[in-house]
């Protein structure tokens, strides 16, 4: 399960960078809309990573399971997800070409990036805990 979350975060980061590169040189024509779809799919992939993390059992002391969800990181991830979704919904009229971009797309990209970082911090915390548990 942890591997899946790790790979989702890595893949999403890669795709987010691609989406940024695709969006940058174009106006919001049909081609840019295609890039916008990639950006939205990226967020949808990240949301799946969030769902997977959310389904993990909560961490306990002493640990009862090998892979678990830390309440502090879960709170941060949920908050980042909400902010990213809000930013995307605020950018919706721009993404479908109904309104000019006044910074909404950049804010959405930044919010998605913040979600990626929150998931990454959760992953690093899990790895650190793993090392402590398996240390001799």
């Amino acid at each position, binding site marked *: 399960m942890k591997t*899946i979350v790790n790979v989702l975060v890595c893949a999403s980061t890669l795709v987010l960078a691609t989406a940024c590169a695709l969006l940058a040189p174009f106006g919001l024509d049909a081609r840019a809309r295609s890039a916008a779809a990639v950006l939205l799919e990226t967020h949808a992939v990240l949301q799946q990573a969030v769902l997977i993390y959310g389904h993990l059992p909560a961490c306990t002391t002493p640990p009862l399971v090998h892979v678990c969800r830390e309440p502090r990181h879960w709170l941060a991830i949920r908050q980042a997800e*909400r902010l990213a979704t809000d930013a995307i919904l605020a950018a919706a009229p721009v993404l479908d070409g109904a309104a000019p971009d006044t910074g909404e797309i950049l804010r959405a990209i930044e919010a998605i990036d913040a979600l990626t970082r929150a998931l990454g911090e959760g992953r690093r915390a899990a790895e650190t805990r793993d090392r402590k548990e398996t240390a001799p």
Partner: protein
Amino acid sequence: MTRDTTLRLLTALLADLPQAIETGDQLIRLINRAYAQLGDMDEDVTAEDIDALLKKIRATSARIQSFG
């Protein structure tokens, strides 16, 4: 493969993620291939496509936020 087919592949992949994916390598290969194909396509994405994606994102977010 058309953009729509790719989107369907992604949707199916993500819907059944824990069941469909055996290894992380498998997942990253599938996602990279699907997104590379998306990026190469010249077909137009319609406003309806964008709306559908936004609805999916909103629904998933509601699920996430309903978690305790």
